[in-house]
């Protein structure tokens, strides 16, 4: 009777607890919890940590993991800078077609990755519209090189920073900028010392989301990458290859390595975010 303090939920007259909590927990278990537990069990108990390490500690796997994270990092850093710039342009400036551009920013969310993959390959291939121009002017190949992977991941991660930073810029009180100007700061100094710090936490959130998305990206990358082992072979593709060879343990080991590195990165970014919130003030 008086077990209230041990109850999971505090008492309320609101109906539907059993039903809503039941549906939520059932689906969460079936779709997310049990499958992930099976993966970890299979890896750590079935295959063992040493076995997994042997799989990962081979040049081809190592190169694939390194490529996936390096390319995701490069693409997300580009999107961090470009996203803040794009958000600024969309909020502060007026120009014809602005609404259309604003809507188009979400295109990478709505466009299937396979479509993006073949479309980017078509234009960045050596005989493509942009690929041929870049080839002639810079002598560089884009598709079927790491540069192509960067392009695909920039495409995929484009909306994240824009969409996290945009609402923050809208909320900025112009008086802060006026105060900075009256105190003699140049416009550039106001932007770098007053505005940018206010955007930092939101921009980092967007960066983390873009990074998480692009590390594991598969569909848009495999068409443009060329998929040459050790050079342009990304980690998710290597998992697919292992599965096609029925080497489930190999696939599991690479998958767990990817999860581990992603979560470490996300944790690190979360810590940076907490630090920047404290330092720059809450936004």
């Amino acid at each position: 009777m008086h077990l209230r303090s041990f109850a999971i939920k505090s008492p309320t007259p609101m109906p539907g607890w059993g039903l809503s909590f039941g549906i939520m927990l059932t689906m969460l278990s079936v779709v997310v919890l049990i499958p992930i537990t099976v993966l970890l069990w299979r890896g750590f108990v079935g295959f063992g940590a040493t076995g997994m390490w042997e799989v990962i500690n081979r040049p081809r796997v190592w190169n694939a993991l390194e490529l996936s994270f390096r390319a995701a990092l490069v693409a997300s850093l580009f999107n961090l800078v470009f996203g803040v710039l794009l958000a600024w342009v969309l909020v502060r400036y007026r120009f014809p077609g602005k609404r259309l551009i604003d809507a188009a920013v979400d295109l990478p969310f709505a466009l299937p990755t396979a479509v993006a993959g073949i479309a980017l390959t078509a234009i960045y291939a050596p005989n493509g519209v942009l690929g041929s121009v870049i080839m002639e002017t810079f002598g560089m190949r884009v598709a079927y090189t790491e540069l192509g992977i960067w392009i695909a991941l920039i495409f995929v991660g484009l909306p994240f920073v824009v969409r996290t930073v945009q609402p923050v810029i809208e909320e900025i009180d112009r008086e802060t900028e006026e105060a900075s100007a009256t105190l003699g700061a140049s416009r550039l100094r106001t932007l770098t010392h007053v505005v940018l710090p206010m955007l930092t936490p939101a921009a980092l959130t967007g960066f983390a989301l873009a990074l998480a998305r692009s590390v594991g990206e598969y569909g848009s990358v495999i068409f443009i990458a060329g998929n040459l082992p050790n050079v342009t072979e990304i980690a998710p593709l290597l998992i697919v290859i292992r599965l096609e060879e029925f080497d489930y343990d190999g696939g599991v080991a690479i998958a767990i390595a990817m999860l581990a590195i992603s979560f470490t990165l996300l944790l690190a970014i979360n810590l940076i975010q907490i630090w920047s919130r404290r330092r720059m003030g809450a936004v």
Partner: protein
Amino acid sequence: MTETLTLPKPRAFRPATTEPVLVKWALIALVLAILTVLLFAPLIAVFEEALRRGAAFALASLSEPDAQSAIRLTLLVAAMTVPLNAAFGIAAAWAVTKFDWRGKAWVITLIDLPFSVSPVVAGLLFVLMFGSNSALGVWLVANGYPIVFAVPGIVLATLFITFPFVARELIPIMLEQGRSEEEAALTLGASGWRTFLTVTLPNIRWALLYGVLLCNARAMGEFGAVAVVSGKIRGQTTTMPLMIEMFYNEYLSVAAFTMAAVLALLAFVTLALKSALEWRYADQLAATHRH
């Protein structure tokens, strides 16, 4: 004697909180150039490649039996995934926002987890659970319920990928709206269902539609997770995105890009509806979509 007073011509005035005009237009031009190269050029390329040999040829490729079955399968998978996802989203949002309970933060983190898992890993999860190397999978196949390399596996993988979509839209808006309206309805004697249908649902309908829209777009377009669980059996477990890959690898360029163009049109519709919701019902969507 009148002397005309000539005032000095006023200098162009720029408020201290804007950038010089030249900088402004340079930034706009830069942004547009990058977007053209990254977003618009690929989009135009899809339609150009699809129509390379004429509209009739492109349309004919869509009526091939394989293409037809891919379209049907994609519609079927979306028709199963989206309602399940919406049901989950509503249930989760109700449990999270209408009650106070322990472990709530953990559950919210778990709901978001699929966002940071590679689609390929998502597919792998269900191959491990229900594939030929798991006892459960072997038993299910022996009893006539194959999951992997069949439609149920595709639905499960798609469900994983789209898992947070509806819940993430509903939770913030329901938190913001609070519980008082439901409490008033209950006090006035409405039943739980009636309260939900006549008070809560009208309040969250646009946010729900927004989530469903994004969920549907992702469900129809998912590639990596589905590629792993489907087995890519032509005419049976090949969805539209997988069909694109097959056509592309077989150098059936027009067929691949025509199928891609269909999905691109779907993306346009999604974006148009999404933008319409953002402009029209901004106050009834989660705060991050209001602009």
